[in-house]
């Protein structure tokens, strides 16, 4: 019973957070960003239904997101043109139906196998649909895409959804509904069998389940939620274009889900929020942002394959019995070389970027962390390299202590 209560509390907190977020972050940019986060949370969770829950690595999930979005955009235009009484908040249902339909259609051919074959078929289908989008212009609108106007739909209790804040709450509502539904799905017989098929497909066959059917059903439901996310994106941007359907978007959702952590239900939520935030704001801070993205991904794969959620969940039992403070001294000790390492790395990347890319036109003078210096002189390079290698070395020195602290804390946690 306690677990039910804990879950209820978690979802209540989630609802409150969604409701209060615009009060804490009221700026237009924050609203835009949070709206996008809501969309991406649904998208990433739907992807994790495949990767994390069922063990299917897809390279073409954007197909369902995009098709859901295009259908929603057309539906909005159709409703507006014919003055039908359908309000905007009902439009994501169109996305869901579209996602489900295409999930069933393409899933029927792609879920017959698991593993590498599934991944490669998803890659092929992804490329084909993306290319098809370039050919079938009447539906996909060529490069310009399909534009729509959300205000032209019938008002919903007087709301016309012109201002971003209203759109935010619409997305927040759907985000909450979808997250709750997807969480519930994991608690059903079907959800369990997805895990079983992921863990050991052969065994699942010998307890009476057709793994193909389980994969197919997971695929359809996942595509349905991706369709909702796509529809919300169409509402948010009032524009759907073929880039949303392509390999880039498929890669992005993989990145979000993996960085967040595929082993925990809430992992992709964290990943979606972090990556969306970085995507929108990192490009203002550094021109080498794509490099940081790639490095982040590699580092997560190498050092935290459980993603952010995996890292956090190590601390969960400690937090529960109050032993987390035992880790504090070790963390404090590790933070010094870690900060040095990160600062050194950023400095090296930024200086290299400046000297290689910008120095030719802007000169060697540059600013970093508020300091002005000459990128051509050796001193800053020495400092950065010292920070980087010193940090790496220091981290290596203190790492055993952290490992030990973890082990001790965890052992004590188990005893309690």
């Amino acid at each position, binding site marked *: 019973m306690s677990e039910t209560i804990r879950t209820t509390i978690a979802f209540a907190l989630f609802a409150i957070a969604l409701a209060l977020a615009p009060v804490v972050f009221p700026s237009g940019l924050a609203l835009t960003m949070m709206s996008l986060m809501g969309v991406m949370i649904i998208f990433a969770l739907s992807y994790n239904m495949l990767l994390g829950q069922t063990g299917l690595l897809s390279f073409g999930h954007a197909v369902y997101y995009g098709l859901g979005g295009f259908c929603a955009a057309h539906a909005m235009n159709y409703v507006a043109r014919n003055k039908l009484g359908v309000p905007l908040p009902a439009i994501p249902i169109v996305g869901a139906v579209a996602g489900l339909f295409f999930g069933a259609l393409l899933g029927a051919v792609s879920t017959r196998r698991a593993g590498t074959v599934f991944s490669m078929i998803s890659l092929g289908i992804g490329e084909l649909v993306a290319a098809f989008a370039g050919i079938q212009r009447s539906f996909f609108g060529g490069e310009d895409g399909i534009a729509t106007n959300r205000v032209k739909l019938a008002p919903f209790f007087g709301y016309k959804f012109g201002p971003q804040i209203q759109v935010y709450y619409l997305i927040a509502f759907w985000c909450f509904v979808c997250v709750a539904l997807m969480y519930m799905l994991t608690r059903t017989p079907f959800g369990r069998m997805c895990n079983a098929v992921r863990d050991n497909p052969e065994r699942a066959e010998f307890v009476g389940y057709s793994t193909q059917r389980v994969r197919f059903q997971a695929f359809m439901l996942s595509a349905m939620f991706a369709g909702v996310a796509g529809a919300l994106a169409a509402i948010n*941007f009032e524009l759907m274009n073929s880039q949303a359907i392509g390999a880039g978007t498929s890669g992005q959702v993989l990145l979000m889900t993996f960085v967040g952590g595929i082993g925990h239900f809430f992992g992709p939520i964290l990943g979606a929020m972090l990556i969306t935030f970085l995507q929108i704001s990192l490009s203002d801070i550094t021109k080498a942002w794509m490099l940081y993205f790639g490095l982040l991904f590699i580092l997560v794969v190498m050092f935290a394959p459980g993603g952010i959620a995996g890292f956090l969940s190590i601390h969960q039992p400690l937090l529960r019995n109050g032993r987390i403070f035992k880790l504090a001294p070790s963390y404090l000790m590790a933070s010094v070389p870690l900060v040095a390492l990160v600062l050194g790395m950023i400095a090296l990347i930024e200086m290299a970027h400046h000297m290689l890319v910008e120095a030719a036109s802007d000169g060697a003078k540059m600013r970093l962390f*508020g300091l002005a210096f000459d990128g051509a002189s050796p001193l800053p390079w020495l400092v950065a390299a010292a920070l980087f290698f010193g940090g790496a070395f220091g981290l290596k020195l203190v790492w055993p202590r952290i490992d030990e602290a973890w082990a001790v804390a965890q052992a004590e946690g188990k005893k309690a």
Partner: protein
Amino acid sequence: MRKFTLGVCMAALLTAGAANAQETVKMGYIDPLSGGGASVGEVGLKHYQWLADQINAQGGLMGKKLEIIPLDNKTNPQEAVVQAQKAIDAGARYITQGNGSSVAAALSDFVTKFNDRNPGKEVLYFNYAAVDDSLTNEKCSFWHFRWDANSSIKMTAITNYLKSQPNVKKVYLINQDYSFGQGVRKLAAEMLKAKRPDVQIVGDELHPLLKITDFAPYIAKIKASGADTVITGNWGQDIALLLKAAADAGLQANWFTYYAGGAGGPTAIKQTGLQHKVYDIVEGNPNTAIEAAQKQEEEFRAKFGVTLWYPRAVNEMRMFAKAVKEANSLDPKAVALKLEGMTADVFDGGQGTMRKDDHQFFQDMYIRSFGPLDPGAKFDEEKTGWGWKQQGKIAAADTNVPTTCKMERP
């Protein structure tokens, strides 16, 4: 990392709400600053920063300094909309963008809806390089102004020039398979038929956008068709690779292009050794421009090490400053009303007009060819030692294409 502070400001902005005190006039520059498109976007940014410095040196706009806010749209329309929102949050009432017609369409649409929903907070969008016809035809907007010649104008100019070239007999069309490339193909076929009915179109090819690594098969086809002239709207790697494959196969044809002068184009032509065989259509030629323009060109090249690619950006900013002065206001609506129908001096000499009906700018256009510099010509491209030579000039009046724009004015 001068933008690090900007990033910190932005983080603060998230909590603080929209900026209110407007000490400077802010203009959002929303173009690709990362990924493949960045090579063009970065150069564009230099133009605008340089032009802003010029305006500020002359006292700014109504005494306020003009500030360019660089924003990376990653060549993605949806991302561009987010970046526009960011610009507006930072207090910008003007945005400018050029690379990619799909991004331009998204921005024009966004700005129009935004102004509709936020009366009194209007935002104006200046387009300096997106040439899709639809932006000043069926998709035209009061809040969008275009300084680059649209696709029809460029093709009109090319075909007008071809009228005077009797040795052109067989034309091959090869274009990228997307709306712009298809537009070029259609215009070329129609206009050639009207102006040179004797010319035979021996091939009409559409190839996938930015996906071809080896154009040799296409070149084999062009050769087999016996074409003496190729017309293409290709840009980026698609023009560089196309020309390279042509040189490899020894194809002796004249190339009439929109974008052979783009980043990397001159290097590719020089490599292929096609002397004065590759033509492009532009609004200015440094080697024959008026003296004032040549001086600015020299200054720009000395400062940034790149060619002043966008004379139209200069026109845009000069006319912007002029409109602010005439309106005596920084309000986008007032500025827009002044820009409509404005006639102004053009960077390369002569005058140009912003047509009121569709907000399309008209000026004299030049056909150039690329090859070894003539004696006395000052400017080469991309340090190749080769430069552009003017081959023809098409007067603004001769490119006056009709528009279907039915503009909704506020």
